[in-house]
């Protein structure tokens, strides 16, 4: 059967991999290709690259590093960052990306999801969702989270948006729970489980991984298809081979 995926996420800013806490205060973690190769060698199932400043700056992702990654990496990778049109998506896919992920531009113009699905098939189209619980208890989406000065809270409920994204042709959803992101206390299992119940395409958990148990809980309790993390992998706090051994011992189906 299909295995559960472990997905290091590389936030890209000015051609380097960076990591912030709660989406702020970015620190340079290393060179894109070096980190990509390291994770490939360690057994990562997939990589996600977010050009985190592309959308707030109103530009599309830089193709140069996509080509460099594609030429050396033999595992799948997804690219996100300010992709606003079929033509921009085509350029990124032709540069060698396997999937493209849209977030803020899809919120600006939801029809983009359907256009991408029609052009490339739903399996290429990932919708990233940044979600935060508001004071009234509802989860709602955030836009332009790559730049704290431009981040906007939208009236759109996270659950409504995930249903709409699937109807429009999303082939995968990455749910980033901003309330738990960067603080390593575990994924937001409550939110993930609620979303899982109405998400019929692959669902990837994002935000909050701090220990191997957190990955297990996301798979076992929220039934997500993949778990994404950044800082615990970049810092070496969690090594992917040991993580996969633990998950296998706990009965999670992972690729060795």
């Amino acid at each position, binding site marked *: 059967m*299909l295995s559960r995926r472990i997905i290091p996420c590389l936030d890209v800013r000015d051609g380097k991999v960076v990591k912030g806490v709660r989406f702020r205060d970015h620190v340079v973690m290393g060179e894109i290709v070096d980190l990509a190769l390291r994770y490939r060698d360690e057994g990562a199932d997939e990589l996600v690259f977010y050009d985190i400043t592309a959308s707030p700056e109103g530009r599309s992702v830089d193709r140069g590093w996509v080509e460099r990654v594609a030429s050396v990496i033999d595992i799948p990778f997804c690219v996100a960052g300010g992709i606003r049109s079929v033509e921009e998506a085509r350029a990124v896919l032709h540069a060698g990306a396997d999937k493209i992920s849209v977030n803020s531009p899809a919120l600006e113009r939801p029809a983009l999801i359907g256009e991408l699905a029609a052009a490339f098939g739903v399996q290429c189209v990932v919708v990233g969702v940044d979600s935060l619980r508001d004071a009234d208890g509802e989860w709602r989406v955030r836009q332009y989270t790559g730049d704290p000065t431009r981040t906007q809270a939208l009236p759109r409920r996270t659950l409504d948006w995930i249903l709409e994204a699937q109807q429009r042709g999303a082939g995968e959803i990455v749910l980033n729970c901003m309330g738990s992101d960067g603080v390593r206390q575990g994924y937001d299992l409550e939110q993930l489980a609620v979303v899982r119940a109405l998400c019929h395409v692959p669902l990837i958990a994002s935000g909050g991984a701090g220990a191997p148990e957190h990955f297990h809980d996301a798979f076992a309790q929220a039934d997500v298809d993949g778990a994404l993390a950044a800082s615990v992998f970049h810092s070496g706090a969690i090594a992917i081979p040991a993580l996969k051994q633990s998950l296998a011992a706990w009965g999670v189906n992972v690729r060795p």
Partner: protein
Amino acid sequence: MGVVLVDAGGTNIGSVRYALQRLGVDAALTSDAETIRTADKVILPGVGAAGPGMARLRELGLVEEIRSLTQPVLGVCLGMQLLCERSEEGDTACLGVVPATVRRFAEQPGRRVPHMGWNRVRRQREHPLLAGLGDDEWAYFVHSYAVPMGDYALASTDYGDDFACVISRGNFHGMQFHPERSAKVGARLLKNFLEL
């Protein structure tokens, strides 16, 4: 001469080309019938939908050309599906060199569509395309439609039901997963194809 990649608008052409480069082969990207006809090996990549994929091959005048090829041909992902007779995707007539109808995965409890991620490739038959591989390997899949089992199946994958993940019929071969994104196993499969 050499290895050519048929440029039918498939979006994984870049990554297949890079995978071949890692094996020391510089494949030409072409949609020219004469170049395809005289190549040693022909690869039909493809990510996308069956209807637009076939429409593009028709526009390029390549449908009969590909059907009549006698050298080893490899279809990858959608490229493999296009080798079949029909696809349920848009009810599309395909190239018809493998006697199969491509079917959409029915959603079942716990089976999400698309089938996306690493799954096992289980050998069903001996074939030079599978040389050096174990009976049970991992490969990376991204698809919503699949080729049912049949005597053309060299290997199978279990996603609720078994489907054919490596097929072969005469000089035509197909891989449903992405060898260019399936780490060492994928590289070995591509190398085996290049040595057919």
